[in-house]
């Protein structure tokens, strides 16, 4: 793996959250208690290092609360790790939510430009991809209607369509793939493989082992903020599922089925 070109290097990152027992979010509390607030440190990520090879589809797996989403937000530059560094080799776009910043009163067309620029596209880029975006979303009939009149499916489809057309070198995706009907999901999947064929890197978080197995060639397994394993997808997923089988009836049963 070392001789391969890297898309992202995650180097020994740790992320701490403060759990406030009593949070100094009011002036009164601050004045009464002095500057100190009562908190406990919670390390959502601890000393996590791995490399994401270029052109791979990389899955982050782990149980709830394992730090996957925190890691994803660090990759998306929304959180900043206390320690360590993340080095992306290329433009990163994150897709943690669809339709971010949509204004309900504005039309679909206006929202494409708004949302596109929030996601980092230039006006020129949006103009050149505009038809594709509308086409992909399948809401062309209603593109001049305010988005508040859209059905929730149309809303997320439009949002997703904009995001997928940002076309970054590295795409970071939270579990937003599960939007729209079966047909749209199929479209998304094709778009992702197209993406991969172009040599782009996708990093995604998913709870669905089937999806990870189907889409990813590499994976990293996190447990309670620590990296357990990373590397080729199949052995990592298998190790994760095996651990679930040992860990308990409830989740193990689930994992066993998926395996």
């Amino acid at each position, binding site marked *: 793996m070392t001789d391969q070109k890297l898309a992202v290097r995650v180097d020994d990152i740790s992320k701490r*959250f403060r759990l406030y027992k009593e949070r*100094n*979010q*009011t*002036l*009164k509390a*601050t004045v009464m208690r002095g500057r100190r607030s009562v908190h406990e440190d919670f390390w959502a990520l601890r000393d996590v290092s791995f490399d994401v090879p270029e052109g791979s589809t990389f899955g982050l797996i782990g149980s709830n609360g394992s730090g996957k989403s925190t890691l994803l*937000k660090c990759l*998306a*530059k*929304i*959180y*900043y790790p206390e320690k360590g560094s993340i080095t992306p080799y290329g433009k990163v776009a*994150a897709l*943690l*939510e669809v339709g*971010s*910043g949509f*204004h309900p*009163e*504005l039309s679909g067309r*206006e929202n494409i*430009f*708004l949302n596109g*620029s*929030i*996601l*980092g596209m*230039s*006006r020129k880029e949006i103009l050149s991809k505009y038809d594709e975006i509308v086409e992909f979303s399948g809401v062309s009939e209603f593109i001049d209607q*305010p988005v508040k009149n859209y059905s929730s499916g149309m809303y997320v489809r439009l949002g997703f369509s904009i995001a997928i057309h940002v076309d970054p070198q590295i795409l970071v995706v939270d579990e937003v793939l599960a939007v729209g009907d079966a047909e749209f999901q199929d479209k998304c999947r094709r778009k992702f493989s197209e993406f991969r064929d172009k040599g782009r890197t996708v990093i995604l978080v998913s709870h669905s082992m089937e999806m990870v197995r189907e889409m990813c060639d590499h994976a990293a397994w996190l447990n309670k903020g620590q990296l357990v394993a990373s590397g080729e997808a199949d052995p990592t997923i298998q190790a994760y599922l095996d651990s679930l089988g040992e860990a308990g009836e409830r989740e193990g049963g689930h994992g066993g089925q998926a395996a």
Partner: protein
Amino acid sequence: MGYLKEVFASRELLANLTLREVRGQYKRTIFGQLWSLANPLAAMVVYTFVFSFIFRIQPDAGDPSGLNVFALWLLCGLLPWTFFSNVINSGMGSLLINAGLVQKVYFSRIVLPLSYVGSIGFNWLFEMAVLVIALSIAGAFVLPWIPLMLLTMVILAIFATGVALMLSVANVHFRDTQYFVSILLQIWMYLTPIVYPIKLVATQSDEIGGLFGSNITLLDVYQINPMERFVSVFRQMLYDNRWPDPNDYLTIVIWALVSLVVGVLVFRRSEKGLAELL
């Protein structure tokens, strides 16, 4: 410098967010943009009734314009003030209102408060245009002063931006800020010679003399208020139609720069932690 580059790179996003505010604001209203005139006009009517008709406050006639209309004199100070106070209020809340965006997407966060400066500035431009027309009808020769007026508007916008940046961060840490500041703004308005002329303060100040046996007069303390200078500069240009006092002008430029630099520094320091704090 790197930071400025980043902000500059987000100019399209800033434009789009500003447009979102401008377009979204009066959507589905019958009167549309005219609503932005409603508030200043209502305030003008009330203040003119109370302070001119009842209290009989008489500002000096415009020199050399010769204007003697209380309502116009009032608006020359009131419109800049309402712009300032709206920018502070909206800019301060901009991070909280857009918390969802901050937690989901990475972009230069400073565009959020700036977009409100833009959209409120757009309304203000509209209001000032109406004021210029009204002043011209009343007989003031205000047209040559328009370029300088626009420049001064930019300077006030810079000053307001700096203050709003500081307060937006403070508001994320302490939600009390917004309530505290809205009271402060009310007091601040009456500490600024908007509804009354500064000569009334000067008269009082002369009667009292030096404070606590020093040379400092009440008027000196009163004039520390940067908004006092802004209002006075706007009145000299628009109502009096003369060159603003260079000292006054220099003072507002300095205030604006200091406010912007401090505001950007404060904002930049806390920008990275915002997503967690919201």
